[in-house]
């Protein structure tokens, strides 16, 4: 684990740059994380991120794409539009959560 500075605050990240402390995340940080990977956050993005955050808090693991679709209500196509190519990992990164481990 590494201590890094982002938006002028200290945050803990893993070797790849994923945040490792749930409570260190906030909306401003999300914007910076998104910009790091070329995504400009909109309300549609935020809805998905809020679902991921809340679901992680309840379940203790990052939701898979299918779970975001079935439980979070955002269709698969929309997820691929919002977070192109690798939606599951990109969502997790911006939401300050670990990569999802589920297969489906």
């Amino acid at each position, binding site marked *: *684990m*590494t*201590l*890094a*500075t*982002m938006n002028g605050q200290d*945050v*803990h*990240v893993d*070797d*790849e*740059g*994923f945040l490792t402390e749930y409570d260190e995340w906030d909306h401003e940080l999300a914007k910076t994380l998104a910009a*790091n*990977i070329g995504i400009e956050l909109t309300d549609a993005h935020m809805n998905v991120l809020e679902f991921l955050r809340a679901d992680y808090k309840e379940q203790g693991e990052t939701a898979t*794409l*299918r*779970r975001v*679709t*079935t439980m979070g209500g955002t*269709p*698969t*196509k929309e997820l*691929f539009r919002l977070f*192109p*190519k*690798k*939606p*599951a*990992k*990109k969502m997790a*990164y911006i939401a300050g959560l670990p990569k999802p481990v589920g*297969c*489906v």
Partner: protein
Amino acid sequence: MTTATSAAPIPSFDDDAGGRKLCIICSKGSLDMAYPGLVLANAALGEGVETHMFFTFWGFDIINRKTMGHLQFSPVGNPATHMPTALMGLPGMQSFATHMMRKQIEGIDVPEVPEFLELITDAGGHLWACRMSADMMHLTKDDLYERVEDIISASDFIELSEGAQTIFV
């Protein structure tokens, strides 16, 4: 151990996936043999890999409108059931085993076959049917799941899979 640095690393999501392309040949239509291809296709799409599924022979059951929702699991001759072989052929055993497997699949929140195909095509996956199998079974495109793009020949598939990694299930 926590070490201090100034800038956080940025993950490389490698959007191009190196132009990676995957073709999955689905040749079997039992419940247990349908899922490996579906799961891998879905995972590949989630990693930004161009993905094609080619359904041939018994794999047609996965895209045949009449059968796709009712695939069966046969425990006969399957040592993985860890049950006495003599019992497996008894009447009702196949539907019991199928029921159990469906429950297990549902239990881990994995979709049924038709919904899985919808998921895969929503994620940008391509579905193709084999010409020879269609001819043998006297099936046309109208008999197949509506998101199957076309019925194509073996040579078409060879062209399609140029430069792809191909998995035979």
